[in-house]
């Protein structure tokens, strides 16, 4: 049922799009119709795939590394009051710098290859994961805090056996935020300087007036984003298993 409905919605949107192109008589280099974009998708399929693979790989590696780093940061902050005192103000202050403004510097230091894109993704993913998870680690319900106290729990054990599992659903929400930000970061990284990737392809197509190729790259990017969301959704449902 859902699939049928999605199909109908998509068909209507495509028809409206095509109607708009025909009705306004806009030239294809301003607004190519869906048929033209489909044509570009077919024509440039190998090129699109190759660049998409580069972008997707950087996205996934950056996301995984960023989430892992965020997790470690949150655990470290929750485990040590000293770390909280030293790192927390720094983390918050670091958020005053828009990460996208760092892209030229990151590219300057790490070059045009994969490393600069991965680092860009890590930078935007790290903070939401770390801060959402840290808050959840520190906000155990009072009855559970009492239980830890009366069972004479060691702090590290309490963190790993009770606080972290209790905070897992929050990690799921952090992942959601991360999945929203990560594609931005990887594309910005490619725009600033890259010889491969969908962002690079879009810039190149734009320069050559190949608007249909730009749209085709956009379609691939959208599909990638949707797949990422489905994956994160799966992970989030896993973190909430067994909860009432």
């Amino acid at each position, binding site marked *: 049922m859902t699939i049928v409905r999605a199909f109908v919605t998509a068909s209507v949107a495509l028809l409206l799009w095509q109607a708009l192109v025909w009705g306004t008589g806009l030239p294809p280099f301003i607004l190519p119709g869906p048929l033209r974009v489909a044509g570009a998708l077919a024509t440039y399929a190998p090129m699109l795939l190759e660049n998409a693979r580069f972008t997707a790989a950087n996205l996934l590696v950056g996301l995984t590394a960023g989430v892992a780093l965020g997790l470690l940061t949150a655990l470290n902050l929750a485990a040590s009051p000293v770390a909280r005192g030293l790192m927390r103000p720094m983390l918050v202050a670091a958020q005053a710098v828009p990460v996208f403004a760092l892209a030229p510097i990151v590219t300057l230091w790490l070059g045009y290859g994969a490393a600069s894109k991965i680092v860009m993704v890590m930078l935007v993913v790290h903070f939401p994961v770390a801060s959402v998870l840290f808050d959840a680690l520190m906000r155990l319900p009072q009855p559970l805090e009492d239980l830890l*106290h*009366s069972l*004479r729990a*060691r702090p590290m*054990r309490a963190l790993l*056996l009770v606080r972290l*599992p209790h905070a897992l659903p929050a990690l799921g929400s952090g992942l959601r935020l991360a999945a929203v930000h990560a594609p931005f970061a990887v594309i910005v990284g490619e725009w600033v300087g890259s010889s491969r990737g969908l962002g690079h392809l879009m810039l190149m197509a734009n320069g050559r007036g190949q608007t249909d190729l730009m749209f085709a790259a956009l379609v691939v990017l959208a599909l990638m984003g949707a797949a990422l969301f489905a994956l994160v959704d799966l992970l989030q449902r896993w973190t909430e*298993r067994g909860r009432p």
Partner: protein
Amino acid sequence: MTPPELNLRGDLWIGRDCLARGLDLRAAAGRWTCLLGPSGVGKSTLGRLVAGLPGSARLGRADFASLRGQVAVMAQQDQLLPWASALQNVTLGARLRGAAPDVARARDVLDQVGLAGLHDRRPAALSGGQRQRVALARTLIEDRPVVVLDEPFSALDAGTRAAMQDLAAQMLSGRTVLLITHDPLEATRLAHSAWLLTADGSRPLHLPDMSPPRHVRDPAVLVAQAAIFEAMSCSSAA
């Protein structure tokens, strides 16, 4: 492990607010002592003090440091970890202290509280009564001489509650138990001695002579319950 006697004497404060003045009550060693009283008089606060839970409460000049590590707590919410099985919940204390959990004993205790065959269920797959049985097993395996029960049965239906009362009375006998409750019948059934707490102090309540757990149908239990009920009504009207 000889269970200690508890002497609770003095004014009960929480922060700068005095909840009750001139408390003077005794919980005999190895016996069930019941605290009754209107809401807000500090029964749970007193329980938390005895259990050594963090907070701003204090009772006169009493120092409960000697009880540290000797008190187990069972509260109204079962506080079970939703992602862990019944067995894992029972062995939680040992694992939290970095000790090797005694799984055989945990299974044994779970059987004793009537959960044979349900060891691997998660809390969501257990009834309210069964979850309180897991909480009781978790309390029992800690094997502490003093147990604070803070309204542990008040969320259960009448039949399940009576069954849990009998089970707890049997399993916790020989320990110094401080039972906090709103329910005169519960006090009459389970306690060796019972105290009414008000803002102006504490006074002992009369209980039938036979030893607990007493039967609901016993006329002496019903009479004592009625008397406690009246005493509580007077104290909350005042």
